[in-house]
Structures are given as C-alpha cells and as structure tokens.
C-alpha cells in the first residue's frame, strides 16, 4: 500500500477533534487526549505511561506549533487518531522551543502489516511543515471545518 492511500482526513471523525483543550501542561494534555480514546480508566493509565515514556525518549513537538504524541499499544485494535487544540499553547519541549497548539495523538496496534502507523506519522509531520501560523487549523471553530482544512492541505502533500 502506498503512502497516498493513508489519508489523515479519513482517520478523523468530528468526535475525535477537540478544539478547546483545557490542559496547560505536557502531561495533562496527554491525559486529556487519552481520555478521548474510549478506553477504560486502567487502559488509559497504561497508555499514558507509554506516551510519557515516548516523550522522555525525545519530544514529539516537531515545531510549527504541532506535536504528534504517538506509540503502539495492545489496547487498541485499529490505528486511532485524536486531535486536540490548545488556543493558548502548551510547553511541549518542542524542537523550536515554542509552545505547541495542535496535538495529533496517534496510537497503533502492534499488528500493522501495512505499516500505516509510520506512514500516517510521516504524513502528519509533512503536513505540519506546510502550516503557517495563520492557518485555518489554528482558528477553525468547528470540527467539520478543521477536517475540511486537513483534506485541503492533504492535496498538497
């Protein structure tokens, strides 16, 4: 399967786009995003531990106000993408030292024969590089508007 077949927009549903995150720190952002996965409390705890470990390995804040926390986990049976946005921004130890505002949480199951995980990570990272600070992703009021802008941006990557 080629990278063109993995669309970020196809993984996103309105209920997975949260445009007003309340969290103000790295760990609380991760907790808030994990809270939207539909996993039970214990499963969320395990996932959170692993995501924090991944951040210790090196921040997933890739600059341009975007962070892409990610890991694989036994707890989910399909590639899951949750998007969150903090209008104020959160210190995520990003590569450019600027606060992160857009968070793309990606969780993939261990069994992923087409390696959609790495392909999706790559596509989001590529999309982030195209963003300007005034992009509609930072201002969209509704999830549908946000997803529509992602679809538009994807045409160019």
């Amino acid at each position, binding site marked *: 399967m080629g990278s063109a077949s993995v669309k970020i927009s196809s993984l996103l549903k309105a209920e997975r786009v949260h445009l007003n995150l309340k969290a103000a720190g790295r760990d609380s952002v991760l907790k808030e995003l994990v809270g939207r996965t539909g996993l039970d409390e214990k499963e969320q705890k*395990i996932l959170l531990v692993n995501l924090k470990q991944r951040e210790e*390995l090196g921040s*997933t804040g890739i600059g341009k106000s975007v962070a892409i926390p990610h890991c*694989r986990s*036994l*707890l*989910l049976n399909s590639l899951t993408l949750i998007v969150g946005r903090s209008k104020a921004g959160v210190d995520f130890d990003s590569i450019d030292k600027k606060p992160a505002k857009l968070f793309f949480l990606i969780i993939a199951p261990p069994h992923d024969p087409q390696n959609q995980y790495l392909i999706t990570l790559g596509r989001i990272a590529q999309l982030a590089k195209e963003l300007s600070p005034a992009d509609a992703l930072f201002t969209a009021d509704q999830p549908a508007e946000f997803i529509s802008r992602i679809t538009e941006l994807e045409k160019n990557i």
Partner: protein
Amino acid sequence: MHPQMELLVTLHDLELMIKEATEDAAQEKAMGFKIDSLEHLTKAQSDVAKQVDKDIFSRYQKLKARYGRPVVPVINGVCCGCYIRMPTAQATKVGKNQSLTACGNCGRFLYWLSE
C-alpha cells in the same frame, strides 16, 4: 483488569517501543522527531519486569523467545497470535481481563479487546 495483566501489557508496549526506537529511529528522525538515549526506557522496562510475578515473567520470557510477541489481543473471539477461535465458554465470559488467560492452542497471554 488483572494487576498482572496490567503489568504484562505495559511491559509488552514498552518493549515494542524500545524495538521500534532502535529499528525505526532513522525514519522518525527524518520526519523531525527527536530520538535520544534509550536508557530511561530500558530502566522503565526493567522496573516493570521486576513487579511481575516470577513464574508469570518466566513464562512471558519463554513465549517471547518462541513467538516474539508473548501477549496478543483477542479480536472477535480469535487469538491474534495463532488465529484460533476461542471456545465459546471463554469468549462469552464476563470480565475476561479480570483473570490472566492464555490461548489453549499457542499458550500466549491473551488481552481481550472491547468489542
């Protein structure tokens, strides 16, 4: 979830992270991610491993040596390690992750996903 299963899932996911941070580091770095030292991950792995019951950990290690992945999910009643359908009595039991279960065919530890 059974406390030992909680530890096994955490351990499994950490080991997978270490494996991928080693094998896919170049790809992730090319995407713009930072990959620093694995030291804290191996320490976390060791800390979790120490909390697992000795006999269970020994079985986990044997399964890992044999299959690579010692814990597998059950999806739609099928073991995702050997693809054998679970017996109805096991598949329909309530609170399946409250006890530590293994596949009757391949022996892998089973994690039952919500369906």
